[in-house]
């Protein structure tokens, strides 16, 4: 069974890496923000995986908080753009 978990972890990790690359290359701010948002989502999935992996349900709480809060950053960025912040920045 462990191999499955590790494959799942591997898939999520590679996802993180790819998302991170998008975060780096942008090119515009919204692109980065979308990447960041997705990164947070993957962290939530990671927490879930880890909960299964270690058989500890406590990690689900992390997932809940992640799911509930992480999008706020995106809203913040969106607000920045809406108020006239430069998109290239």
């Amino acid at each position, binding site marked *: 069974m462990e191999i499955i978990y590790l494959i799942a972890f591997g898939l999520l990790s590679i996802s993180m890496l790819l998302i991170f690359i998008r975060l780096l290359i942008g090119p515009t701010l919204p692109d980065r923000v979308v990447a960041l948002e997705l990164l947070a989502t993957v962290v939530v999935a990671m927490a879930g995986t880890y909960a299964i992996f270690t058989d500890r349900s*406590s990690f689900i*709480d*992390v997932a*809940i*908080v992640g799911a*509930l*809060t992480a999008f*706020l950053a995106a*809203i913040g960025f969106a607000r920045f753009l809406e108020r006239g912040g430069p998109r290239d920045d």
Partner: protein
Amino acid sequence: MMKPGTLILHAAARFLVPLQLLFSVFLLLRGHNEPGGGFIAGLVAAGAFTLYLFTFGAAVTRDLMRVDPRNLIGVGLFIGMISVFPAVLQGEPFLTAQWWPVMLPGGTEIKLSTPLIFDIGVYLTVFGSVMLMMIALTEAEER
């Protein structure tokens, strides 16, 4: 007055904020046994109101909160301080945890304790502090 959010955001915020607040209280109350606690709960609550802030603006959020964040901080700190003293009555050092089991009608026992009071103080302070900063910053920006 600039209209801060969009329709979709408005609706989402109205829906999400109560959920987040509820969740924050949940985190607060069971923090002693599971991940959570006053600090985390306070941050979640602050996150909720920050969403509201971004969606509806500072004035509306202030109105929603009713209490000035500084009062929240003051009360939070004061509650935090309250938990310092009950032990003195027992001749025990400051901050010694005191537990008062309370029997609810229906046979359930709830344990009131100074750590819980303390956690509530933490919750209010954290909540108040973050909101004080966020609202002030937003107001400065809205000017």
